[in-house]
């Protein structure tokens, strides 16, 4: 099986957001080429934003992705506030973090339980998994529901929230509505603890990779809605500076741009990166859970990203609970915005990695130029490198199993191909 040529195709990768395909060529037992092709049709957001008002950017960019709209809204706000030199009050920041925790809980519960866990049981989907372990799937659905409840309470809606604006919110939620989140969040915290225990018992392929990690960091806490860009190689930059350090390459096979750091360095953003850079800032409970799960200080096995995601799920529940307990209605719902001719950049931690936005604006706040850099396009080069490693180490598998393993490898990244431009068509050639 490992000699001669071999050819496999994954036509349509499931349980990811968007459309892509995967081609692998193996010759005489060596992986010759791996290409993640993204054929999600382009939507030209950077083009259609030109001529729109700064105030429309949070709602328009949210439509890039139905799974992580808050990430788009928060990065858009950060970029505009950077451009206009606006300082936002701490109570508004706390409410933003609460909304963002809702998105992390919703998105991580979706990925851990519905998209990723079925692979570890050889199930096609969560409905099949529920036949084996319905309590687990229900726990995941309950967690997801709590995330959505948080987003509805703070943002007004789970998919494409309506309450966010540059400078803050339209109406901060009433204290009673926030207090009502306490019991569901306590249950979610317990369920998240069980989630870490559950996933840490899965069988993981032994794969270790040397990654360059990149993500936001903030002193004293796990960065979500703001921070400076740090890397495992010692970078320490503002989001705007990072955007000018990254080269985005347009390759023929993809409607997503491939991002690399200066000097052609592929890097990784998302849960593994955040954990490696900021793990010490996790809450004591989340650190305990990570230790019990055997994660260590750095996790370099991409298949174990599900464990890191579960730890982050636990953290997000705790963090949300803490914000709820100390909630005070902001004195004003939003900072005053005075547009000026300017440039600004912002970045926040989407559940699947750092999301950057940069704008150039005229004196009235009309957008002259826009740039969006979503997590999946940043991770694409690393996903391909991982696939190469995984295929090379798994050549003894038959074609069906190898195809599944490749799909799982891509799903390790919770890729949002809709963002990066979506799903996997797999083709493999063994020569």
């Amino acid at each position, binding site marked *: 099986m490992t000699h001669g040529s071999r050819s496999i195709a994954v036509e349509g990768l*499931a349980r990811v957001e968007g459309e892509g395909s995967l081609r692998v060529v193996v010759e005489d037992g060596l992986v010759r080429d791996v290409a993640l092709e993204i054929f999600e049709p*382009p939507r030209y957001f950077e083009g*259609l934003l030109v001529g729109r008002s700064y105030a429309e950017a949070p709602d328009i960019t949210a439509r890039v*992705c139905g799974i992580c709209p808050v990430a788009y809204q928060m990065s858009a706000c950060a970029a505009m506030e950077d451009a206009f030199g606006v300082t936002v009050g701490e109570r508004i920041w706390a409410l933003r973090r609460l909304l963002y925790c809702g998105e992390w809980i919703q998105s991580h519960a979706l990925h851990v339980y519905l998209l990723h866990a079925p692979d570890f049981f050889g199930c096609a*989907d969560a*409905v099949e998994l529920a036949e084996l372990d319905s309590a687990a799937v229900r726990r995941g659905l309950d967690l*997801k529901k709590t995330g959505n409840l948080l987003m509805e309470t703070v943002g007004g809606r789970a998919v494409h929230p309506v309450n966010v604006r540059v400078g803050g919110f339209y109406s901060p939620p009433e204290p009673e509505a926030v207090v009502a989140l306490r019991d569901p969040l306590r249950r979610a915290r317990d369920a998240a603890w069980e989630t870490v225990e559950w996933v840490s018992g899965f069988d993981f392929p032994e794969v270790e990779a040397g990654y360059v990690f990149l993500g936001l960091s903030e002193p004293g806490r796990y960065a979500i809605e703001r921070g400076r860009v740090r890397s495992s190689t010692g970078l320490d930059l503002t989001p705007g500076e990072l955007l000018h350090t990254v080269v985005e390459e*347009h390759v023929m096979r993809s409607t997503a741009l491939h991002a690399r750091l200066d000097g052609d360095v592929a890097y990784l953003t998302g849960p593994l990166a955040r954990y490696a850079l900021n793990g010490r800032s996790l809450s004591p409970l989340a650190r305990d859970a990570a230790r019990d799960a055997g994660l260590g200080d750095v996790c370099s096995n991409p298949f174990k990203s599900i464990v890191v995601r579960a730890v982050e799920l636990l953290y997000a529940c705790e963090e949300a609970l803490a914000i709820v307990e100390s909630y005070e209605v902001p004195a004003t719902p939003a900072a005053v915005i005075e547009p000026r001719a300017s440039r600004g950049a912002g970045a926040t931690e989407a559940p699947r990695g750092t999301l950057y936005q940069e704008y150039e604006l005229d004196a009235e706040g009309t957008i002259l130029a826009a740039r969006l850099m979503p997590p999946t396009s940043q991770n694409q080069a690393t996903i391909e490198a991982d696939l190469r490693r995984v295929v090379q180490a798994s050549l003894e598998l038959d074609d069906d199993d190898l195809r599944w393993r490749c799909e799982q490898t891509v799903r390790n990244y919770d890729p949002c191909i809709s963002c990066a431009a979506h799903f996997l068509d797999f083709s493999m050639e063994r020569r």
Partner: protein
Amino acid sequence: MSTTRPSLAVFKFTSCDGCQLSLLDCEDELLELARAVRIAKFAQMSRALVEGPYDIALVEGSVTTARDAERVKEIRASSRQLVTIGACASAGGIQALRNFVPAGSYTGVVYAHPEYISSLATSTPISSHVDVDFELHGCPIDRHQLLEVITALLAGRRPVVRGYSVCQECKARGTVCLLVARGTACMGPVTRAGCGGLCPAVGRGCFGCFGPADTVNTGSLAARLRRDGMQARDVARLFKTFNAAAPEFRVQSAAEEAAGEEGRG
């Protein structure tokens, strides 16, 4: 378990995936739904793929490539009932803003090699290509409405999804009218109900994400907004977002842009 359960398939075209996510957001009903129907194809949720024909096809996204213009015909041919979900599938979506600019003018803004990209000059709703049995509107759709549509189709009745405007929903939930009381620009009078009147409830004018209601007077609303001091350019933008290519909104944004040009000249 009966093997004669109706089959449900979910297809994606050009979109953000948020409307299909609304199905997975039915956390309390999802496992029950999976017993009532056979989920035959739903790539966002499952790697299993059962070939058609399907009893119900939910279609998300708009048509923006030549390949998709063909694919939608194949899906129609293999589906007994075809339901579009969301503003992209039902009206072209935010990406239909390309319909208003010369072909190809956005490509170079985003991509270094426009020649690698093959996409159509327009983003069009599914109904521009094939017959559609039911259109569910919203950016995103409301999951309760989605469950109602699936339930109705399974029961063989017409879905109860109203075509009146958001104003009715504000009245029903007791939200004070922002347009009348505060002069806030609000698309509520011309926008289809379904969200529950979310934006006015947080003190924000409706921005039209459910598209035009059944009978609308967009000209009257636009005149009112201008009288309240809004510039024609900003009125045009209001009509030109997530349902920009819906005929009623398209006509009004064009009229406002023309008025804006005249005002400057």
